[in-house]
């Protein structure tokens, strides 16, 4: 019984912080320290999952004060799935980066990555909107520093733009927090949910917070900073930015939308849905036009983020579940894709799509990983991406808004087009030969494993849906909006 009393969630925040400090203190041992911490975090998240299954949703009062005076942590099914996603992707990235970074880079990578992981876990567990601001800043600064790790003009300007956008988003969010706090005298989400009522200040706060978070989530047309930052970062960093970091601000948005702003109204939801649909089409078209593989994958992230927002006008449990499923399967698939792109870059020294030059002969596992991840991104069965689109389609038809289905199908076709384009070039001979540097096996296998996870997500649906229902994050029966 003792193990059930351990606050596993708190441990999942403390461990990466401690890991970051020890990696910083002893840079020569950064790699083993980081790997051990990564494993320990995975165990903590598993422990938290077990705890939630046994005891239902959990609230934890840091300092023992409790809201509204203190800060509360809160974990339900939604939190758990986000933490599990972070743990699985994080472990994969940790292993992948062992091979990717040289000694000098690794020294800087590990502490920053551990800080980023701590920020993610703290963010997903926080139930306090000011604490969320602090975690957002921690997340943003870590992400920017990691992008800049690549060096070079592209990465540095990408990082700089990312930093400015990130700070602007945080400040908008913080002003919203100020207005909410001074309206209702609390920054605890549950307390706010009880006290909130429509007023000019609340509407202003909603506008500011949603705008700030959309900027960080890079919803079209606020996506302008994303492709350069995500494409120019080192491959494992691109993976964790696309898979995890943009999802974190979406998670906050989702929580606020469901808990504090239920009165937001259908018009705003329709607007978000429209922007989402536009993102799906625009991102897909731009991805198709790119000549560099990493840039293509980055634009595909813009498109995939659009799917998340299709759930807002649908406002049903099926819709939210669908969006969450997009989020999870995209995390796994996009990690695999960026890892695959990283392998190709590592092997050939470039990522020009037309010069892939039968790379499949040298990196068969990598191309398999890319294709499997592509299946999930396109939304073909039996992948996680298929289930996600199926759920969204079902919700669209049930709510009588079938037209959102068009965006789903067109988006899938566009993804299919660029996946086939890339895979096709991987089989074609080109003029320019590769540098042909051997890729460490760990990097190929982790890419493949992540792609397999994306497919497996389509096979364990009932199990995941059961986890999702812990604490009913999307409300009980009936619609949430």
């Amino acid at each position, binding site marked *: 019984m003792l193990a059930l009393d351990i606050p596993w969630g708190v441990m999942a925040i403390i461990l990466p912080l401690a890991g970051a400090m020890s990696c910083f203190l002893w840079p020569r041992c950064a790699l083993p320290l980081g790997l051990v911490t990564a494993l320990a975090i995975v165990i903590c998240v598993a422990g938290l999952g077990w705890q939630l299954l046994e005891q239902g949703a959990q609230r934890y009062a840091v300092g023992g004060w409790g809201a509204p005076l203190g800060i509360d942590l809160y974990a339900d099914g939604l939190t758990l799935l986000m933490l599990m996603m972070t743990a699985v992707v994080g472990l994969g990235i940790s292993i992948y980066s062992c091979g990717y970074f040289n000694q000098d880079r690794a020294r800087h990578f590990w502490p920053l990555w551990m800080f980023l992981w701590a920020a993610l876990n703290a963010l997903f567990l926080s139930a306090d909107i000011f604490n969320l601001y*602090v975690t957002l800043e921690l997340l943003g600064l870590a992400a920017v520093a990691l992008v800049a790790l690549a060096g070079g*003009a592209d990465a540095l*300007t990408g990082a*700089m733009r990312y930093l400015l956008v990130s700070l602007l988003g945080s400040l908008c969010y913080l002003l919203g927090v100020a207005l909410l*706090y001074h309206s209702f005298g609390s920054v605890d989400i549950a307390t706010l949910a009880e006290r909130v009522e429509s007023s000019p200040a609340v509407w202003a706060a909603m506008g500011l917070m949603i705008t700030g978070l959309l900027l960080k989530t890079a919803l079209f047309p606020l996506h302008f900073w994303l492709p350069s930052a995500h494409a120019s970062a080192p491959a494992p960093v691109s993976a964790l930015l696309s898979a995890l970091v943009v999802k974190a601000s979406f998670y906050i948005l989702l929580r606020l939308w469901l808990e504090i702003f239920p009165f937001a109204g259908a018009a705003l939801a329709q607007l978000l849905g429209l922007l989402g649909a536009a993102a799906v089409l625009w991102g897909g078209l*731009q991805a198709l036009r790119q000549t560099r593989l990493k840039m293509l994958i980055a634009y595909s992230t813009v498109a995939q983020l659009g799917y998340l927002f299709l759930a807002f006008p649908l406002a049903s449990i099926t819709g939210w579940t669908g969006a969450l499923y997009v989020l999870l399967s995209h995390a796994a698939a996009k990690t695999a894709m960026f890892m695959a792109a990283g392998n190709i870059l590592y092997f050939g020294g470039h990522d020009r799509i037309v010069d892939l030059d039968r790379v499949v002969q040298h990196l068969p596992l990598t191309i398999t990983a890319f294709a499997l991840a592509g299946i999930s991104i396109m939304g073909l069965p039996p992948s996680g991406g298929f289930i996600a689109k199926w759920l969204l389609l079902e919700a669209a038809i049930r709510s009588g808004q079938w037209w959102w289905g068009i965006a789903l199908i067109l988006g899938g076709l566009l993804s299919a087009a660029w996946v086939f384009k890339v895979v096709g070039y991987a089989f074609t001979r080109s003029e320019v030969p590769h540098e042909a540097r051997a890729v460490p096996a760990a990097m190929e296998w982790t890419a493949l494993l992540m792609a397999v996870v994306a497919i497996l997500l389509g096979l364990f649906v009932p199990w995941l849906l059961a986890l999702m229902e812990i604490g009913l994050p999307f409300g009980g029966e009936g619609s949430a909006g």
Partner: protein
Amino acid sequence: MIPAFLYALVGVGLFTLGLYALIIHAHLLRKILALNVMASGVFLVLVALAARTQGMPDPVAHAMVITGIVVAVSATALALVLMLRVRIATGRAELAKEPLE
């Protein structure tokens, strides 16, 4: 009670002023200054509205602002060094124009 709202309005003014400058200026140092002015505006709103009490003003908002000030100086320091690196790499302390498609 009037000063609370007066300063809160000044805070709103600083926020929008900073936002305007952030968008129109290309030089990174100016953008960083603009973000700092915006942050001061947000802090002013937080603290000013905390003075709407009978006796002592609300200490929680003050603590939040102290947290915010430290976060702001950390971010500013990182941004300034990044700016210098951008300058070394590209020769300019500006961001290249986005390809407006």
